[in-house]
Structures are given as structure tokens and as C-alpha cells.
């Protein structure tokens, strides 16, 4: 165990130097992307906000079922099958079929090539599962149909969330999917997430609907309240125009009224629709509805043809800016709920870094002093291994741009305390071997050999704990498991290559000296 080939010495040295370089690169500036890597600081160290959003998919399911009902009606009409009594109940569609066509409908729904109930070959599943009782059919989303729906609404939602967060212009936001109905938003450096939260909390479904004079209208009517809660109005269910046709929106000042408004411009289709509706509706009041609440309901004085308009509604400049931002970024497919929020202020982060570094330095000094006191020269070797261990650990974390969290720093300090264990096991074993063996080279060699399985056992147990933490843990805990796990690997390297190399040189040079250790 004491022999090292020249090539091996050389590669150990090169490897250690290269990795150590990356430790130092945290403190230097180089004009090259690869050579100027830095450890990323977790939100708990640099300050910032962590938000976990969950999509409320219920409205999406209802919406999809509603449009499916329309599809069914048309589909069966084309096939000359009479169906009636469509009801949407408890997330399923129920309808009746004339007696003679029950088998036809069954086979239409069950067919692998069915257009109305698509079949997904790779998942062996239709979009809908159906039950049949007498003339009545009940359809509900299959598990896979539901997954598909959730995924598509998640994809849409994450896009809108990204646009909204980008528009606010925070520093390097991190937006990720979690499962099939959650979105994780990390906003480094943001210590007051209030504005982002209010922007993400709105679906921003914008519609223009006429205020109805009579409650009898072909499309039906609904009662909506005003945004400020002051009053209610009866509104036609017919949607003149929706936010989908909006091209741009920005806050502006209306020169006549000296009021902040949101001006918008429409795309060509939208402009045409809007022009037609306003031409027919001169004199009527047009309600501007956002998420089921009326913002304002101005009277149409003349047809609006150019595709440009204004929304007024007692805005402050800030609220007009936010509304414009929401309209520009588009509507969310479903409401988002914030189910977890963690915010750390920047000065607490700084305090945590300082405390972490302070305890690392003190812990390190204590361990180094203790090892020197216990083993003298060999204590120095163990300490050298410990220092290179730290350089390797921080270097590898930097190279892979791992995120360092406060528990991660604790993991590094813990590694300092536990890393000397391997060298202690070896040195103690060598001491025992020297009692019965006069040849110090043989004693050192068998000391290394005999302690090897124990050291591996001891480190594998800790590594198991680290790996499980990595897969089960979240956020800061993950940071801890990474430093703990990588720390074990660098410990083994520093003990078996660096410390052993120096020990070997020393022992071979001083083999005739008494009481080596």
C-alpha cells in the first residue's frame, strides 16, 4: 500500500490542482465562462423568495367537458343519432341515447380509431372512460386523459407565469415544473414578493360584454358585481371580445380626464369583431370584465373601428401598470394557489453566510489543533489531507455549479469533523501493528491494508444516508446532502491518495527511526 508509481503521483497532483483551481475561482475574476465558475448561493444565503404554486384544475375540467358536450352534439347529429339530456355532473358528462342506437354509440366510443373518444396506443387508454345503463351514458376522463389535460394546462400556465415574472424584471428567476400540477418560482434577491404574488394570483381573464337592459336575451345573462364592490349589473353572457385578441396594453394618461387608464390595441380579428359590436351597440354600456368582476362599464358613444381602446377604472399608476402587464402576458388557463412561500431578506442571508464561514473557520482550527496535539507529525499529514479535502470539496461543488445552502455549509463543517476519522483509523491501526512488527514499512503497509474495509464500511453508511436525503429532501436539505455526499468521496480521495502519498515518502525516508508515530 505504500508504493506509488510516478504516473500516479503525477495524476493525483494534477487532479488536486485542477479541482482546487475551481475553489479559488470563486474569489477571482477571469474573462472566460468555464474558468470563472462560482458556487451558486441558495435563497437562504443570498436572500430571495421561493413560491410554490398549485394549479386549480377544476375549472379547466368543467370547461373542457362543456366544449366536449358541444362536440358530441355535432358529432351525433352528423351520424344521425338522436341524443338528449346532456348534463355535466360531478366531473362527468351524462346523456341519453335513443333505444335503437345504444350499441352504435357504444362501438363509436369504444373504437380504437374513434374520433370522438381518442385512443392513445402507447398508454392503452381512451381519453374518456364510459359507463352505460339502459339508455343513459356516463363519460368521465380516464386517468391518462386527466394527466394529459393537467400537463397541457401546466404547460400553458408555466409559460404565462414566466412572462409575468419576466415582465416584472427580477434578477435571474428560476421557474420549474413540479409534478403535473405545480410550479416552483424562485426569485433571488427579492425580499418583498407582494407584487409578484398579486400578479400570479390573478387569472386575468378579460372579456367585453354588453350590459343587458332586459334579463331576457338569447344568450342568457348573468349578474356580476363591480370590482370595487359598489354595485352589481346584469350582463349578457355573449362575449363580444376576449383577452385573447389583445396585442398590447400599456398604462397611459387620458388627457381629457387627467386619469390613468390602460390603453390596448387589438389584433386584426379582434379589431373587426370589436368594430362590428360597437357599431351595433352605440348607446349601450359595454362592461369590461376581469376574472368575473366588472372593472368599468362605459357607454359606447361611437363605433370603435381602429382596434385601439382604453380601459378606465379609478386606477393608480401602479395598478394600471399591473393590469397592463397582466393583459400583455395573457390569461392563465386556471387559477393558481400559492401553497408554500419562503422569503429571506438579504441581510439575514448575509448574516447566515458570515455565521457559516465563522463556524467553519473555528471548527476547522479546533479539529486541526486537536489532530496536531494527538499525532504531531502525522497530525500534520492528516491536516494537509483535510485542507486538500476542503479544496476538493468546494472545487467540485463549484465545477458542477451546485447550490450552496446554509445546511450545506453545515454539511461542509461536519465533513471537516468526520473526515479525519479515516486517518485516525489508519494511524491507530499502524500503532497496533508496530507493537508486533519491527519493520516499520511492513507495519505501515499492513496498517493501511487492515483498516481498509472498516473505512469503506463506515463511509458507505454515511453515503447511504446522504443519497436518501438527496432524493427525498427539498431545497436546503438537498444542499446538505450534496455537501455531505461529495464530502465523503473527497475524504476518501484525500486520505488514500494525498495523505498516503506523503506518509509513504516519510516512512520510506525514515524507516530506521524509532517511534515513527
Amino acid at each position, binding site marked *: 500500500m505504500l508504493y506509488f508509481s510516478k504516473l500516479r503521483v503525477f495524476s493525483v497532483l494534477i487532479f488536486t490542482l485542477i479541482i482546487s483551481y475551481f475553489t479559488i475561482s470563486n474569489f477571482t475574476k477571469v474573462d472566460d465562462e468555464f474558468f470563472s465558475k462560482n458556487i451558486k448561493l441558495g435563497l437562504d444565503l443570498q436572500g430571495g423568495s421561493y413560491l410554490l404554486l398549485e394549479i386549480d384544475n377544476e375549472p379547466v375540467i368543467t370547461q373542457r367537458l362543456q366544449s366536449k358536450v358541444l362536440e358530441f352534439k355535432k358529432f351525433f347529429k352528423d351520424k344521425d343519432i338522436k341524443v338528449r339530456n346532456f348534463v355535466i355532473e360531478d366531473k362527468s358528462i351524462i346523456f341519453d341515447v335513443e333505444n335503437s342506437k345504444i350499441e352504435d354509440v357504444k362501438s363509436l366510443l369504444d373504437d380504437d380509431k374513434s374520433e370522438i373518444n381518442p385512443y392513445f396506443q402507447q398508454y392503452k387508454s381512451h381519453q374518456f372512460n364510459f359507463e352505460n345503463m339502459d339508455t343513459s351514458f356516463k363519460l368521465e376522463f380516464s386517468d391518462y386523459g386527466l394527466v394529459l389535460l393537467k400537463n397541457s394546462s401546466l404547460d400553458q400556465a408555466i409559460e404565462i407565469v414566466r412572462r409575468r415574472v419576466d415582465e416584472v424584471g427580477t434578477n435571474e428567476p428560476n421557474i420549474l415544473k413540479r409534478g403535473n400540477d405545480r410550479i416552483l418560482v424562485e426569485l433571488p434577491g427579492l425580499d418583498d414578493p407582494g407584487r409578484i404574488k398579486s400578479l400570479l394570483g390573478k387569472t386575468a381573464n378579460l372579456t367585453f360584454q354588453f350590459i343587458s337592459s332586459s334579463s331576457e336575451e338569447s344568450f342568457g345573462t348573468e349578474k356580476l358585481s363591480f370590482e370595487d364592490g359598489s354595485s352589481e349589473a346584469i350582463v349578457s353572457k355573449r362575449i363580444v371580445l376576449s383577452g385573447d385578441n389583445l396585442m398590447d396594453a400599456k398604462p397611459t394618461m387620458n388627457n381629457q380626464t387627467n386619469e390613468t387608464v390602460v390603453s390596448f390595441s387589438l389584433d386584426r380579428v379582434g379589431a373587426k369583431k370589436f368594430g362590428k359590436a360597437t357599431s351595433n351597440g352605440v348607446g349601450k354600456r359595454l362592461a369590461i370584465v376581469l376574472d368575473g368582476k366588472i372593472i368599468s362599464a362605459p357607454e359606447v358613444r361611437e363605433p370603435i373601428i381602429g382596434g385601439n381602446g382604453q380601459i378606465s377604472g379609478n386606477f393608480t399608476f401602479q395598478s394600471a401598470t399591473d393590469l397592463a402587464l397582466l393583459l400583455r402576458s395573457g390569461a392563465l388557463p386556471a387559477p393558481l394557489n400559492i401553497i408554500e412561500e419562503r422569503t429571506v431578506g438579504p441581510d439575514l442571508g448575509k448574516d447566515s453566510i458570515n455565521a457559516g464561514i465563522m463556524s467553519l473557520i473555528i471548527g476547522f482550527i479546533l479539529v486541526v489543533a486537536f489532530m496536531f496535539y494527538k499525532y504531531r507529525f502525522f497530525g500534520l499529514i492528516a491536516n494537509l489531507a483535510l485542507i486538500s479535502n476542503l479544496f476538493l470539496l468546494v472545487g467540485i461543488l463549484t465545477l458542477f455549479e451546485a447550490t450552496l445552502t446554509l445546511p450545506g455549509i*453545515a454539511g461542509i463543517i461536519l465533513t471537516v469533523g468526520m473526515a479525519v476519522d479515516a486517518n485516525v483509523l489508519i494511524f491507530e491501526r499502524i500503532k*497496533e501493528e508496530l507493537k508486533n512488527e519491527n519493520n516499520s514499512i511492513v507495519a505501515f503497509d499492513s496498517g493501511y491494508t487492515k483498516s481498509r474495509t472498516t473505512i469503506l464500511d463506515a463511509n458507505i453508511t454515511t453515503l*447511504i*444516508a446522504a443519497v436518501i436525503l438527496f432524493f427525498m429532501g427539498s431545497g436546503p436539505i438537498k444542499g446538505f446532502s450534496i455537501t455531505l455526499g461529495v464530502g465523503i468521496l473527497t475524504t476518501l480521495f484525500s486520505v488514500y491518495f494525498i495523505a498516503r502519498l506523503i506518509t509513504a515518502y516519510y516512512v520510506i525516508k525514515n524507516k530506521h527511526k524509532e517511534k515513527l508515530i
Partner: protein
Amino acid sequence: MKTIYFNKFYKSFNILSGILIIASLVFLVFKGLNFGVDFKGGTLIELRTDKSSANITKIRDSFNQMNLGDVSVKNFGNETDFVVKFEKQNSNDPQFIEEIKTKLSNSIGSVDFRRVENVGPKVSAELLRSGVIAIALSLAAMLLYIWIRFEWQFSLGAILALFHDVIITLGVFSVFSLEINLSIVAAVLTIVGYSMNDTVVIFDRVRENLRKYADVKIFELTNISINETLSRTIITSVTTLLALLSIFIFGGEILKGFSLAMILGVIFGTYSSIYIANPVLVSLKVSQRTIVKEEKE
């Protein structure tokens, strides 16, 4: 070095451990654990006040007026820092935290919210579940590893020592109502690793000595092995404790619970490797034949 007769005290320490475990279980069952917002849901605010005149009673009174459910206020580190926890969590209302801040500033003067954590009931239930699964999984993984590496008698000894350490550490947290949060789960898992590590070192030596001494009984043999590995046991515990004490004292308030759990775990882990794991080998009558059989197979 002089031999210490650890084995003389196997019985008395086993009784002590038994009492500690039962006491811990009683506390865990009847008093339970003080779960933090991670696992219970709710809101945590770490705040720094301007004046040192703001005290716990004042802060508690002004929070109690806000209708937030059960409120707890604690000093955090120094005189001007406090941690406030309450049941209500309303992260969907973007003004929720802002309103609390305004009301609080009106009654006690300017405050700075240094940290806000807001965990909904669904998330806290999931975090608790995944924490429990993580600990159970790591215990199972350790069991599997040691079962592959050693004979079953050794595995049983190591696992009993593990349970001993985890139960008593949690027991101490229950007695003193110390908060259980995500980082405590990390600490418990590390304790599991450390305790196992310590036991394995002694067991490796026991097995080696079983081969070396043909006619020494296991009662004596465990004592020889403990003594032979004793200086390593002490040195490693000392260096690990030095590092942990440094985190505990200088690492800031947030890491206090984590480092305390680890310190307890290291102490119990070291103790249990000697006084739980080894007596199990003795009472299971492990002998030279135990490992010879294994090797023949």
C-alpha cells in the same frame, strides 16, 4: 494502554438505556413533538425590532389582536430579534404579510421582517410524510447493508443501537419542546449514518478477533475489541463534536436545532455502539462458530 472493563457495566447501562427509551416513548406518545411550520403548516416570521424596548409580551399582544389563531413568540439570538409563529397561513392574499407588518409597526415601532415562511396544510402534510419515509428508508437501507456485510446477530445489534439513538434524540426534543423542522430530519438521518459508522468499526474488530482468538468467549472478546478501537472512537467523536459545537455556538440561530440534534446523536451514537450493540452480541451468544458457519456457506 490500560484495559477498561466495559463489559462489567453492560447490564447496568442496558437498564439505563431501557429506562431512557421508555421515558422517551412516553414523552413522544403523550407530549408529542413540537412541529414547526414545515410539518404543521402556518406562518413563521423572523423579525428585527428597532428598539430594545419591544419585548415578547408586547409583540405577542399585538399579534393576538390580529386574529391569527394560536400565536407563539420567541426571542431569537439577540434582544432585538424575535420569531413569531402562528397557525393562520394565507399566502394567496398578497397583502397578508404587508398588513401584519403595518399593524405591527403601528403598535411597536418600525420592524424589519428578515424571514417569512408560509406553508399550506397540503404541503406540510407532504413534507411530514416524505420526512418519515426518508428516515424509514434510510433505516431499511442500513439494515440491508449491514445484513449483506455481517451475520444477522451483528445486524440486529447495529439496528437496535440505531433505534436507541434516534428514539432518545427525539425524546430529548420532546422533553424540551424543541422544534422539529426539515433540518432536524436531515440531522436524524446523519445521526443514523454516524451511529452505524461507529458500530461498524467495533463490529469489524469483533469479527476479526473472533478469527484471531479461538478460545475467548464473546463477553471478553467484545471488551477486547472495544478497547482496541477505543482511542479511535474517542478521537473521532471529539473532532466531530468540535465541528458541531462550532456550528452550535457560531453558526447562527437557524442552525441551532440542527447542530443540537447532531451533538446529541453523536453522544448517544458513541455510547450505543459500546453499550447497546455489543451486549446484543453477548446475549445472542455469538461465538467463533457464528462466523465460521457463514464462511463455509
